[in-house]
């Protein structure tokens, strides 16, 4: 009985988080806050489904399955990497040197750290 409530609770939590994550993708105004909504909330949503599936496997079907742990581990490892890449695409395509905050001791944001077109030709010919 308790496990049934637990599974239902995990499933409802997962559904709410998945919905909110994608709703935030539409609703939020700033591109960097749009990055926040799906990468965190959807991972929690999938985590909830996988937890429910694990409890279901132990309590109802009577054996422990480790597939869910594998999927969770893979998602938790790859979600930050994809978020980083999407943030870099945004910095590269939609921000200029003036719209970004100062980069601190590095001086300039790495994606904008390219030499102007003319300079490059001059150096290669020299």
């Amino acid at each position: 009985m308790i496990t049934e409530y637990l599974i239902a609770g995990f499933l409802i939590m997962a559904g709410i988080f998945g919905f909110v994550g994608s709703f935030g993708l539409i609703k939020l105004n700033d591109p960097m806050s749009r990055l926040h909504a799906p990468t965190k909330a959807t991972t929690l949503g999938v985590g909830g489904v996988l937890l429910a599936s694990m409890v279901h496997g132990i309590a109802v079907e009577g054996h422990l399955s480790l597939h869910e742990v594998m999927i969770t581990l893979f998602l938790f490892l790859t979600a930050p990497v994809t978020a980083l890449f999407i943030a870099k695409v945004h910095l590269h395509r939609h921000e200029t040197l003036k719209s970004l905050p100062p980069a601190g001791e590095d001086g300039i944001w790495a994606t904008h750290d390219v030499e102007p077109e003319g300079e490059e030709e001059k150096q290669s010919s020299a």
Partner: protein
Amino acid sequence: MITYAALFAFVCFALAVLMNLWKILSAEEIADRILALDSMFINALALMVLYGLALGTEIFFEAALIIAMLGFVSTVAYARFILRGNIIE
């Protein structure tokens, strides 16, 4: 009770996939499109695990793992193509 909770989760994730599709169609920036595609992959993965839970089979876990891998690789490839103009240098 589990049946109703699973139905609720099905509806939520289906709406989430539709919203991702809407964002892919209507986004102004390419970063938003990549992000919407990535979250669509993750929502489809959740739907697949839910379907396996509802049917009581384990065959969908392998499929879910492959979907997760494809989603990661395609997102990174797309982002790298935008960043560098090339995927493997």
